[in-house]
């Protein structure tokens, strides 16, 4: 079953067309990585899928429910507010620069949306929060504030925060790009664990060996279009397209 379907998505910023008609499906339990050079539109695609950017044209479907359809003239039409709110609960997003709430403790960062948005009782939220902190290896940091943590720890909190709402699909927008090289490993390990648990994920990343190890499907984007897609062994190990080859030649694989 497809948890997410994107059909012919287009997005421009002013005169600049950033995404020029992209379609992709994400099946339940699969990990899809999106790779490509800076400015290729991969982050914008993720922001469109997570409703942070308004798309110009195309369709966006979560679990068979339309978030965006296209009218006769090819213009994007968004679903009702209530419907979008419901769809919003199907996915979570981990940002490049964490975006933790600095005035909340670690546990409050993880549990507040459970209490405020999902209206869960505090005890239940705390239980979920503690379990997730344990999962990301931060049980001892429950009462710390984000500024007291390393970048890697902050990113692990933000993963726990996204997981707390029990999303069906989790997006990562370059989750290790703001981190020192020695801290990226701890984030990648958490994501690998989630992949082993069959969490459905879409990951925009520059970590090629990680993308190869963790993904079921890899998409190489350049200049607003999908240039090449397929299994990691096809796209990363044996790229056919010249642009993909040129891009990948800069990485140690």
């Amino acid at each position, binding site marked *: 079953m497809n948890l997410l379907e994107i059909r012919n998505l287009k997005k421009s910023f002013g005169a600049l067309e950033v995404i020029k008609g992209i379609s992709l499906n994400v099946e339940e339990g699969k990990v899809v990585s999106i790779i490509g050079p800076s400015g290729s539109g991969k982050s914008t695609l993720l922001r469109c899928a997570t409703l*942070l950017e308004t798309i110009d044209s195309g369709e966006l479907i979560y679990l068979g429910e339309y978030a965006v359809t296209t009218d006769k003239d090819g213009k994007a039409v968004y679903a009702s507010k209530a419907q979008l709110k419901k769809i919003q609960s199907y996915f*979570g*997003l981990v940002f490049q620069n964490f975006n933790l*709430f600095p*005035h909340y403790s670690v546990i409050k960062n993880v549990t*507040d949306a459970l209490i405020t948005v999902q209206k869960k009782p505090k005890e239940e939220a705390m239980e979920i929060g503690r379990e997730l902190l344990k999962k990301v290896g931060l049980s001892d940091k429950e009462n710390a504030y984000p*500024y007291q943590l390393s970048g890697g720890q902050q990113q692990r909190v933000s993963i726990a925060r996204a997981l707390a709402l029990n999303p069906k699909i989790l997006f990562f927008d370059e989750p290790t790009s703001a981190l020192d090289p020695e801290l990226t490993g701890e984030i990648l390990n958490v994501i690998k664990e989630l992949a082993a648990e069959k969490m459905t994920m879409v990951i925009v990343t520059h970590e090629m060996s990680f993308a190869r190890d963790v993904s079921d499907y890899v998409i190489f984007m350049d200049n607003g279009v999908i240039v090449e897609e397929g299994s990691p062994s096809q796209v990363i190990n044996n790229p056919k397209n010249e642009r993909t080859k040129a891009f990948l030649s800069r990485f140690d694989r």
Partner: protein
Amino acid sequence: MEWSVMILKITEGLWESVKIFTLTLIFSLPLGLLVAFGRMSKNWILRNFIRIYISIMRGTPLILQLMVIYFGPFYIFNITLPKGYRFFAVIIGFVINYAAYFAEIYRGGIESIPIGQYEAAKVLGYSKSQTFIKIILPQVIRRILPAVTNEVITLIKDTSLAFAISYSEMFTVAKAIAAAQTNMTAFIIAGIYYYIFNFIVAYIMEWIEKKLSYYR
């Protein structure tokens, strides 16, 4: 005049100054937030109306604004207001003037919060009002506190401008006594009171600032 009588009179004046100070803060702090929203509104008419209001409040002396508010109804509209209007004129004048200054402070604070905070809240499903009240406002308050402290301390001294419309707050009382006695004693007592008042308020603001500095 006996010392005790003089001090009593000036203390009564101090009480009036405290009243102006407190009521101004109670009304202008929330009003300033509303004004800030208006200033940032997508509605062109509202945004520019607020912009002009703020510009006038900051571009003309408070003492003149008090005069207009107190004398305006009679001289412009020929309306005779009851005797108690003097106090209302003082409060109205201070509130609309300080709300304008606070609005600009709030606006600066709100605009300084990274967009990522709004985006994180949105993805987590917070409504717009939940986002503002739970995520944005607490961070804004902490960031603007030093600027607010500045205004609050200025306000203590500004209460003396009520003198312009003969409202008997501390400065007005001290001036009357000093004129009658042809010496400076009343002014010195008032000065000491202003200083102590300021000292206490500054101490409280510092304490709040410390309370809120549990995160970075």
